[in-house]
Structures are given as C-alpha cells and as structure tokens.
C-alpha cells in the first residue's frame, strides 16, 4: 500500500514536471491556432486532462508526441465547432496530404543563409513571425511548431498530428515556403 502511494507520488511528480515543461509552448500553439488567449487556455487544460487520462501510463519518452496529439485533437475539434457555427471558413480541411521524399528542414539549402528574419529588430521580428504563423493553414502551422519549435522528429510529429511522415514533410515544406515568402516582405 505504501509502495503504491509512493509510486503514485513519483508518477505524479514526473507528470507535473512534464506538463510544466510543455505548458507554455502548448499555450502559444493553441493561441496561434484559435487567436484567443482564453480559448487557448481552455484547450490546454482539456489537453492536460485528456493526456493524463489516456496516456499518463505510457513510457515517458512517448509523452511529448502523445500530449501534442491530444492538443492537436482539441484544436481540430475547436475548428470543427467553429465551422459548424459558420464563423470559420478557412480552407485548412481541404489541404492535400501528398507525400514528399525529403525532410524539408534537413534538406534546407544553406544553413548559413541569414534568411528573412535577419534584418528585423527583436519585437518587429517577433510580430512579423507571429503574423506569418497565424496566416498559415492549421496543419502547416502545427507541423512547423512541432518540428522546428518543439523539436520533435518526423515520426513523433506524425504521431502528434495523426498522419503519415510524408504528410508531415509536405506540410512542413509548404509552411517553410510560406513563411519565407511572408517574412521576406519585411527585408
């Protein structure tokens, strides 16, 4: 009995540390997806509950993709609800799932290319990136954030987004192209 209690306490500690490590990025992702802080907080809370309920007993190495899987599901549900209400007419559902051969991040042409954010000052660059990310379709934005920001590999991103690895590469390739185009305006 005592062993059970101590084991549960240890598991709870690990869970707390994990959720603490992802909660801010999760909130930012949700906020970029829904555009409202309060809605984003609700989604993150629902994702935490859903993750704990369904996946807390999985190996800790799998927690990150599984947590973002739950969050991605909640965000998708939110968009569906908005569509049903007729307030959200973005065409993100119509995006194709074609596969590409290469990982766009790994196959980037020149790592030393200063890129479109180079000439922007801090706050201006942050605002430009924020706006460009908001303009991306949902799946492209999720692929970018999970892969580039959260640092998940292609397989883990595919798990989080419930799609094939090829789809992740396609979404990411398009996201990078769109972001470059959008941010080059500021140069």
């Amino acid at each position, binding site marked *: 009995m005592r062993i059970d209690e101590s084991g549960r306490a240890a598991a709870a500690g690990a869970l707390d540390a994990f959720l603490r490590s992802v*909660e801010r*990025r999760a909130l*930012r992702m949700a906020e970029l997806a829904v555009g409202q802080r309060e809605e984003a907080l609700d989604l993150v809370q629902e994702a935490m*509950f859903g993750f704990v309920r369904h996946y807390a007993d999985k190996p800790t190495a799998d927690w990150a993709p599984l947590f973002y899987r739950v969050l991605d599901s909640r965000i998708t549900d939110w968009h569906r609800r908005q569509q049903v209400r007729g307030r959200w007419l973005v065409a993100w559902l119509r995006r194709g799932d074609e596969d590409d051969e290469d990982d766009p991040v790994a196959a*980037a042409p020149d790592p030393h290319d200063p*890129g479109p954010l180079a000439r922007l000052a*801090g706050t201006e660059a942050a605002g430009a990136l924020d706006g460009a990310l908001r303009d991306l379709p949902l799946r492209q934005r999720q692929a970018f954030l999970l892969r*580039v920001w959260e640092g998940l590999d292609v397989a883990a991103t595919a798990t989080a987004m419930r799609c094939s690895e090829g789809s992740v590469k396609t979404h990411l390739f398009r996201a990078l192209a769109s972001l470059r185009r959008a941010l080059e305006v500021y140069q």
Partner: protein
Amino acid sequence: MNEQRPAWLEQARDLLEAGSEGLDAPTLSRLNRARQAAVARHRKPQRAAWPWAAGVAVAAACAVALLSLGPRAPSAPTAVLAQAQPPPAAPAPAATESDAELLGADDAADLVQDLDFYAWLDAQGAQDG
C-alpha cells in the same frame, strides 16, 4: 533534430521561445491550476468500475422479476365471477367460399324458385313407394 538548420529557423525558434517566456501572471496562474488539477486527477486512486456494474445488473434483474411476476395471476373475485358465467356460445361458422359459389350459381337460383315442385315430387314418390 540534430541536423544543422538554416539560421532563420533558429532565429524563429528563439523568437517563439522568448514569446512563451513572457506570459503575464494571471495566465501563468491559470496554467498552474490546470496542471495541478490534471496531476491531482492522476494521483487519485482509480475506483474499480465493477461494483457499479454489479449494482446496475442486480437492480435490472429485480425490475425484470417484479414486472414478470406482478400482473400475470388474476385476482380471486375475478376468477369466481368467470366460473359463474356461462361459457360463451360457439361462434357461428363463417360463410365459406364454397357457400358463396353455390349461392351465386344460376342452377341454385332455379332450385330455389322450383322448391314447391320438388317438395311435391318428393311427396308423390313417398306415396308411390
């Protein structure tokens, strides 16, 4: 991600990281409460579901038993009254299809019209015999 990324992606990552660090106090408080509630839900020992299922099953069985045993047996006065009354008369046999054919036939109509003649013929035969 161990591969070398383009510099602008690293810069984008740094900008996103900086944006997530600068959250206001109410937002951080809300995140903290949500996290603690989720962890508390996990810490709470899970109750087994089978006692609920067993209770529901027993209640359902009792309800079925009550419904099946209750209104079936007739009450005593009703039974006595039923014995005192005469048995219902047997229903008149319904007209069959052959009766309808017989009544509808032309020969049958002639037979009805000459019924007196056949009765007289029958009486004559009896006298002769």
